[in-house]
């Protein structure tokens, strides 16, 4: 596609749509997107290699720093992997507290994604209101873990801090308020004609493409695939908590948005169940776990954006031999050119926001869509 009937427009890396670096080179024919090339790799820190060179205990903090907004799921996934290798029993109170913090994180992350979606459609007030209503959840996270965002709460063998009845009351009260506000936002996203027109039938993804291209999380569920690690491969206390896996059939940007809204309500129900059924007992080992026997484990958790995987190999001692991290955004964004087929250039930001991309989690690659085929190149090779 080298002829001049296409106009190339760079979108990013300092992004009008996202607060993270990602560059899209878009070739348009009139208003239609003919070719789209995401350039990523502005945020790579080589954490897998750093994990090999640090101890099991220090790696908890490295895992939490893969991504700010998903730090609890990363530390949960890493810790569950270490526990699988070492056959370490986690007290049930700690498992429930892990669930609690994971769901708090899911609510604030989904609310952020929904707020950004509102902003991109042009509803700045909706963005401001949702961000305001998200703040009490972050305050809850702070009261439980000690920090608004970077919790460092989950450790191999348990969690770091306990909660008391006062905090439980505070959680219940805040959830009532958040649920009421979310009912209102649900109505807005379902009924506002501008929102439905901007999102319906935009960025469509069909059921067979989900497995072929490995899409995960809310994106897969919005295309009718019932996949959720919490239900398929339970970790923390999810095996003991009743909840629904939300799916929709439409497969468009609107469906992905509504899946997130419904998941917030599910998360609120999970949180209520968790605090009502919180078992008594210890929350973790008295002494931090520093050494793990030889072995290997695949640990999977349901991050806000989909299945997150850690593959950890230990040869015994205090350092892992290999840590492989596969984040949900790696699968979702690398294959995203598929969703921009014949889209209007004005739809680019909403399709992108409907994927809830997390660039910190991603890695350095270039994907090029050409006549429906996906070809992969690196930044360096294109620069030559």
């Amino acid at each position: 596609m080298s002829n001049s009937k296409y106009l190339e427009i760079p979108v990013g890396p300092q992004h009008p749509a996202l607060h993270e670096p990602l560059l899209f080179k878009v070739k348009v024919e009139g208003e239609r997107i003919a070719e789209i090339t995401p350039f990523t790799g502005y945020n790579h820190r080589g954490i897998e290699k750093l994990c090999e060179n640090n101890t099991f205990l220090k790696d908890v903090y490295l895992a939490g720093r893969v991504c700010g907004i998903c730090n609890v799921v990363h530390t949960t996934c890493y810790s569950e992997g270490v526990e699988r290798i070492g056959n370490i029993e986690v007290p049930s109170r700690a498992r429930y507290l892990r669930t609690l913090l994971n769901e708090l994180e899911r609510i604030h992350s989904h609310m952020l994604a929904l707020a950004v979606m509102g902003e991109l459609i042009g509803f700045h007030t909706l963005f401001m209101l949702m961000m305001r209503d998200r703040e009490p959840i972050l305050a809850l996270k702070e009261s439980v873990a000690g920090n608004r965002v970077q919790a460092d709460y989950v450790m191999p063998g348990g969690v770091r801090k306990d909660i008391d009845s006062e905090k439980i009351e505070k959680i219940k009260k805040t959830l009532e308020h958040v649920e009421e506000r979310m009912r209102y936002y649900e109505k807005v996203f379902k009924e506002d004609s501008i929102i439905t027109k901007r999102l319906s039938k935009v960025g469509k993804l069909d059921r067979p493409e989900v497995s072929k291209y490995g899409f995960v999380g809310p994106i897969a569920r919005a295309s009718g695939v019932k996949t959720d690690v919490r239900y398929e491969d339970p970790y923390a206390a999810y095996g003991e908590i009743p909840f629904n896996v939300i799916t929709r059939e439409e497969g468009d940007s609107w469906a992905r948005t509504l899946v997130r809204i419904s998941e917030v309500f599910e998360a609120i129900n999970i949180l209520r169940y968790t605090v009502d059924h919180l078992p008594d007992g210890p929350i973790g080992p008295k002494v931090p776990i520093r050494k793990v026997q030889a072995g290997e484990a695949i640990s999977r958790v349901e991050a806000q954006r989909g299945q997150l995987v850690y593959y950890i190999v230990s040869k015994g001692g205090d350092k892992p031999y290999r840590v492989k991290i596969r984040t949900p955004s790696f699968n979702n964004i690398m294959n995203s050119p598929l969703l921009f087929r014949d889209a209007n250039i004005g739809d680019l930001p909403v399709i992108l926001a409907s994927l809830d991309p997390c660039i910190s989690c991603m890695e350095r690659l270039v994907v090029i869509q050409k006549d429906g085929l996906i070809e992969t190149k690196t930044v360096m090779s294109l620069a030559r």
Partner: protein
Amino acid sequence: MVAGVDGVGPRRLLARAESKNLRAIFAKLREDFKEDFYLDFIAPVDYVEERQFEINYNVWIYSLKTILTVRFRLPREKPAIDTISDLIPSAVSHEQEAYDLMGITFSGNPSLRRGFLVSEEATNGFPLRKEEENKV
């Protein structure tokens, strides 16, 4: 094709096979499970003392609620294995990553290039290999 499948934990299956069977295994998976699975990740591991690379292909099978790991061993000198990117399109980016970080060649994948994580000039090698310990 596969030298036995072992259960290695709840919802975890491990199969070992020879690298020449890779494409046949994935063609069979596609034939048997159709859209019922996706490629979760490809994890290469450098076993420097054994002078081998291990490469793990992990697929999640929705209906079985199981992760199946297919494990291959490759010689450490010029490690190469066939691509499956034509059978499973999402493998492109996983293969790209494995090549750039560990230096495993996927024959038939035309998009393998250096410069994915740390440029070749900076490390003079593949960053996740064990000999790169003190360079990154």
